């Protein structure tokens, strides 16, 4: 069983590798659009990689109002 903190860390690790940002510079409560400097097309790509990494399906309307790594980890946790 993974804690929410574990999930958030896995998510930030994935994002740091994909978008070439140092993991140390990412924080659970960061706005990931801002922290990663990504646009909506890249956000779709992040969603695809999240689905692959966690083997879940995340309907993207659930991401409305979700801007932080911790918030995204919550959405993923409900689908694991």
């Amino acid at each position, binding site marked *: 069983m993974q804690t929410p903190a574990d999930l958030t860390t896995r998510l930030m690790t994935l994002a740091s590798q994909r978008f070439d940002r140092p993991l140390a510079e990412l924080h659970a409560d960061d706005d990931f659009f801002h922290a990663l400097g990504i*646009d909506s097309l890249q956000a*779709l790509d992040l969603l*695809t990689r999240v689905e692959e990494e966690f083997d879940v399906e995340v309907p993207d*309307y659930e991401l409305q109002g979700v801007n932080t790594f911790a918030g995204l980890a919550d959405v993923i946790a409900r689908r694991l």
Partner: protein
Amino acid sequence: MARAPVNEIGTTTLAELEALVAALRDGADAGTVRAMILHSALDSGFCAGADLRELYHGVVARRGDGVDEAAIAAEVRSFIDRIHAVMDGIDQAPVTTIAATHGVVFGGGFELALTCDLIVADKSTRFAFPELRLGLVPGFGGIPRLEREVGNAVVRDLLLTGRTLSATRAHELGLVSQLVARGEALHVARHVARQACRFDGATTRAAKAFIKPLPRARLDREKDLFCELFASPVVTEALRRFTESQDARPYLP
């Protein structure tokens, strides 16, 4: 296809697709075309669908010129008839057709991919029908073609939520014929096309006519429904919001 930002289908692209369909038909009849691949040269994706900005500005300009609503509705109907003729032409082309996809395959782009016999999708592909956000339904023949491929649970989920679907999931659902690594769709599609060219052309023509009937009545009904809905002020307002939006997330529902 290579029209930034994501191969939006407006009047220019429509004319190009009409020329493609004519070339496909002539080539198939002459025996010089045996397969076709649709692919985007842009990183952003395969196709984001109808050119909503052109559509919105066109409608606003016609109203500004004092053109009445019935005449505008007739023009929309004429555009829809033309795009349906293109989609049906690709769908029923007597050669093997392949959509090699990556990234965004939304709305009319998804409808275009669904006209092809096979979808070869790289893992970055995301399919969606976001039309309900605009007060519309897909109007380029996408609903009957999706119904032809997958079950009602999928059709309703995609239509009624507007969500995107990954290539991996679409492959599990039987919508994608071949799932490939990122950046490999065109390469793999060329192998498919070469394989298709090894068979007798008349046999391919007969086989395709047998396995891929056109859902004629449903296509006609979809055109009517789209045109009915398009007349609503809800659509103009949604198109205005889309066109004027500064939203940083236009590709997220």
